[in-house]
């Protein structure tokens, strides 16, 4: 089979697998977040946390709960890292304050940006008690916020959005834990390492001894992808054979990192009572995803160098076992969700291919985006698109029966504004720092792309790295940490405020004058809005990096 056909077969298998689980998983999640029953395990959690699971929260309380939970998580995660010498399986590894601060924010915000080498920085106890726990709950926070927004559309004349603690617990217990458990076993069966040893010693042909690090990788790998986290237990992340040994595990990991965001569109459709409303969002995500995959794949298969052409494509920085297609597919999937796991070095991608991964994130990560965050980001863009579309059909705008007035537009605007603000200001400020040039592997346009990528990844809570940039100085550790925090919590707060103001409205009935939000016209408008907003905001920056590289 030629590499192209093999690649197409992988894409086909992935889409088939997603199609198979779309309905059952989507419907299941809809039930999870609407059911009145509490599981025994959940009741225990509520008792410990002194939560009345049947009480509901105002949006402000909901938002305060999210923020408080995340703040406490950051503090705890920081302390676990700093005090790891008191924990077992530490192997003498230590995390500096800068690393601990950056990593704490990174894992709590579902970014999983890693400014450290796991094998020498984090012991197994930190990985399992700290980082893996956040892999679950940070994803569950995203789910909870998305569900609160959906309730805003579904409900009418109420100021209650549900209970954050219940949503958080259910998302973890009923959705993430069972899936992660099953797939951890599958990954172990396919050769992913699961070990509590620090490593094994091997004797090299020249007689020297090297230590190859081991870790409880499979259990973390499953949730790393499923929760769109992306923080590898090994430095090489999913390029490492112990994390991602074959093209089969590669495909399974891609499936895992897309499955929840994709199926959430079904959940959305079921909950708003019109499944086609979910299908249209899925279509928009699919068009963006497919389009960008084509660009990246094509760019990597058509490099402009004789050696690369001989290799059948730009193979620098890619694993032979995945090839061009397996790497492009993974790179596209990881940057279009908020995962950030990598199985190849994005820094080595061509100008166009690397630019594609950047643009995926600059869209706001909504094709299909992170767990929960993909859905709510897409809905926010839909609100902006419907505002303009509504005006153009001669009505004060509405979406899903809710009027889009001053408050709704303000919330959507704040949610959209947060990411470009920290991204652009962060990049600009970093370039003014005298140390920055020294932190880069490359000069010129590519060096600029490395800085741009770092801030894009952090501001979008992606966590993938272009690499080629050393981000361990205090400036990068702190500013990237702040970018992650702003990029996550400002939109979340705005989205919850939006949900609150939608929920109190009554529903406007549909008439012939209502713009239908299920057809190709709306899908086109939504794709156009996503692309145009990102393009207009980032063209100047992209022109100096990837575009200049691609045209060179």
């Amino acid at each position: 089979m030629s590499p192209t056909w093999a690649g197409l077969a992988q894409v086909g298998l992935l889409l088939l697998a997603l199609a198979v689980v779309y309905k059952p998983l989507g419907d299941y999640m809809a039930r999870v977040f609407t059911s009145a029953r509490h599981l025994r395990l959940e009741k225990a959690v509520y008792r410990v946390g002194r939560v009345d699971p049947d009480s509901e929260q105002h949006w402000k309380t909901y938002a305060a709960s999210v923020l408080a939970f995340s703040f406490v998580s950051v503090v705890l995660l920081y302390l676990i890292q700093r005090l790891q010498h008191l924990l077992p399986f530490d192997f003498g590894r230590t995390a500096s304050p800068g690393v601990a601060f950056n990593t704490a924010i990174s894992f709590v915000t579902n970014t999983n940006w890693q400014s450290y080498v796991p094998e020498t920085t984090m012991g197994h106890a930190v990985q399992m008690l700290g980082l893996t726990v956040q892999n679950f709950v940070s994803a569950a926070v995203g789910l909870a916020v998305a569900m609160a927004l959906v309730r805003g559309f579904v409900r009418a004349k109420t100021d209650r959005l549900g209970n954050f603690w219940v949503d958080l617990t259910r998302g973890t217990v009923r959705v993430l834990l069972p899936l992660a458990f099953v797939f951890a076993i599958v990954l172990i069966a396919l050769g992913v390492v699961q070990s509590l040893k620090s490593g094994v010693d091997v004797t090299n042909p020249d007689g020297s001894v090297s230590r190859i690090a081991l870790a409880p990788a499979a259990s973390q790998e499953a949730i790393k992808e499923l929760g769109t986290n992306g923080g590898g237990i090994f430095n090489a992340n999913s390029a490492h054979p112990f994390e991602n040994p074959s093209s089969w595990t590669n495909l399974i990991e891609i499936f895992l990192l897309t499955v929840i965001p994709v199926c959430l569109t079904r959940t959305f459709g079921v909950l708003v009572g019109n499944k086609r409303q979910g299908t249209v969002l899925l279509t928009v995500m699919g068009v963006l995803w497919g389009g960008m995959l084509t660009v990246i794949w094509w760019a990597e298969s058509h490099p402009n160098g004789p050696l690369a052409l001989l290799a059948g494509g730009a193979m620098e920085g890619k694993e032979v076992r995945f090839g061009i297609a397996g790497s492009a597919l993974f790179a596209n999937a990881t940057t279009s969700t908020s995962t950030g796991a990598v199985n190849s070095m994005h820094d080595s991608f061509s100008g166009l291919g690397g630019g594609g991964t950047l643009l995926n994130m600059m869209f706001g990560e909504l094709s299909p985006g992170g767990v929960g965050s993909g859905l709510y980001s897409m809905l926010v863009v839909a609100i902006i698109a419907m505002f303009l579309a509504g005006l153009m059909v001669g009505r004060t705008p509405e979406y899903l029966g809710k009027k889009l007035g001053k408050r709704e537009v303000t919330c959507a605007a704040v949610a959209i504004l947060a990411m470009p603000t920290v991204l652009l200001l962060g990049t600009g400020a970093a370039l003014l720092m005298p140390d920055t040039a020294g932190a880069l592997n490359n000069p010129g346009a590519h060096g600029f792309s490395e800085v741009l990528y770092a801030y894009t990844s952090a501001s979008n809570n992606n966590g993938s790295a272009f690499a080629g940039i050393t981000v361990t100085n205090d400036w990068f550790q702190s500013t990237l940490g702040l970018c992650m925090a702003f990029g996550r919590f400002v939109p979340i707060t705005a989205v919850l405020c939006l949900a609150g103001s939608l929920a109190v409205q009554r529903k406007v009935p549909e008439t012939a004058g209502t713009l239908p939000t299920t057809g190709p016209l709306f899908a086109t408008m939504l794709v156009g809005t996503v692309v145009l907003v990102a393009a207009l905001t980032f063209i100047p920056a992209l022109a100096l990096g990837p575009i200049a590289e691609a045209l060179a």
Partner: protein
Amino acid sequence: MTTTVTRTPEEETRRHVEHAGRVGAGVFSPGQLVSSLPGALRKLGPRHQARNPVMFVVWVGSLLATVLAIGDPGVFSIGTALWLWFTVLFASLAEAVAEGRGKAQAETLRRTKKDTVARRLRADGSQERVPGADLRIGDLVVVEAGDVIPGDGDVVEGIATVDESAITGESAPVIRESGGDRSAVTGGTTVLSDRIVVKISARPGESFVDRMIALVEGAQRQKTPNEIALTILLSTLTIIFLLAVVALQPMAAFAGSRQSVIVLTALLVCLIPTTIGALLSAIGIAGMDRLVQRNVLATSGRAVEAAGDVSTLLLDKTGTITFGNRRATELIPVGQSTVQDLARAARLSSLADGTPEGRSIVELCATEHGLPASPSEHERGGEFVEFSAQTRMSGVDLDGTSVRKGAASAVTAWAGQDVLPEVDEIVERISSEGGTPLVVAEGTVIRGVVRLSDVVKPGMRERFGELRAMGIRTVMITGDNPLTAKAIAGQAGVDDFLAEAKPEDKMALIKKEQEGGRLVAMTGDGTNDAPALAQADVGVAMNTGTMAAKEAGNMVDLDSNPTKLIEIVEIGKQLLITRGALTTFSIANDLAKYFAILPAMFAGIHPQLGRLDIMALHSPSSAILSAVIFNALIIVALIPLALRGVRYRPADARSLLRRNLLIYGLGGIVTPFVGIWLIDLLVRLIPGM
């Protein structure tokens, strides 16, 4: 003496064309640009500009560019600074032109407000002369033929013809009488005949004319909810572009090509949505103005916006859907009588009957049965028996013969007959078809039945079809019984009807619709309509109606034409579409500007970026200046569109969006490529470019 609102013959024609249907264009002449220039210059101060966030950024940018151009004078820097100021000026000009049109109308109205002397009635019945401005609410004033009514009020005594042309532009005088729904008079109008006593109902300075002046001048203009929401969106875009440009400088410096501040300012101004930012308030003022041109006064812009959203229209049957009066449409003879016998009897019974129904019977007999339309000398001698609620019939006694027409039971009893099954059947049938049966008897002989029907105005069916396509449900309100109402509703093609409607029923219906999230529009004129008018989202009071009705509604139709509600809805929609279309256009424009400016900025350091210069512009400075000039000129080019509103044809939402996206979205992407390229052809001729 009063002055009338003067209209050119052309305007007059346009008004009538519009009454027939479509939302038409407003007038705009280039001369208005020149005459509004002084007003525009007055708006250039920072306080005025700060009210519009987008234009305020341009204003600050212009100031910055000016300072820089003075510090480092050159063709490029001075040219850019100059055109940035033009951008601000053109935006102010758009607003000034829109306001100017209202000001002219206000001026005409103000002329009606002269110092009048009122004759106030004292408690003892004697009169005193006081200046009109001293009148208080509750004062009684006497107005006689030739006098100008000194203030708004209700007629409490007498009946008079009043010339209201100063307000309505309609030259035919109207009747105003005490009691009932035609008691309201407006200050500034003139009594033509008779004498009335008016109870003043408005303080001086708060009269109807005062409010009209304030409205058309835009003095009370506040941003409407949708305008505020759009401003927030535009401000967000402005902030994004501000960030993009601010962050660009370190990026450019890192790449080794630091940009001059004037270039960055030019880029910023080109990117932020100046086109819609400049035209936004003009669009709002022009929307109100389009209503005024149709003789409708809206008390707030909010009401105009709500009109675009209306999903239920309550229309009174009589006068709106049907002609005001029932008309005779058929003669059905019974027994031995022929149609000719019936026609003769029916005509005779109606000759002296001045009611519209009576006249329509005579007309029918004349046109279809060849009988004379006017009474002969002999027939004039007959004695007319008027209709009364007791007898429920009317007729004539002539030469010993008596003819009567009226309700079936009354006439049959009068003729001393038993009810004939034949008559009964016909009467039943006519009623069920929505008509009114009048039985005609001559002496003791029942001649037959005259059918009176409501005649639906021509074109209504199509109109309601269009409304349905726009997603608007029409509900006919009538006092008729359900059977009759159903028949007429079917004929007119309305979606629903409310029969035997009392004012409370109307109110309940409005509340029910609103409960379901629908916006309701209605017209009304009577005092008992007032609560419903206030409850409705768009309540249009007829100018002939009572003061209470006018106070309760949020619009007043000076022509008192209830059908105009449909046009009001269309104007509301047109206003919103214009906003959306120009916003889309403005944003879509940015793509071409990037293609012009980015290569100009960075082709020096990254020569490959020169390949983005697909317009092949002359030089970096001509490219940037051309983009700035385009950005300014497009505002002027779109002023007529902003004032006129984009073309609106009733259609469903999908086709409207497709059409507008194509024209303003795709057009917005293509237009600046052509425009900037053309401007560059001229700019390159400037020495130093």
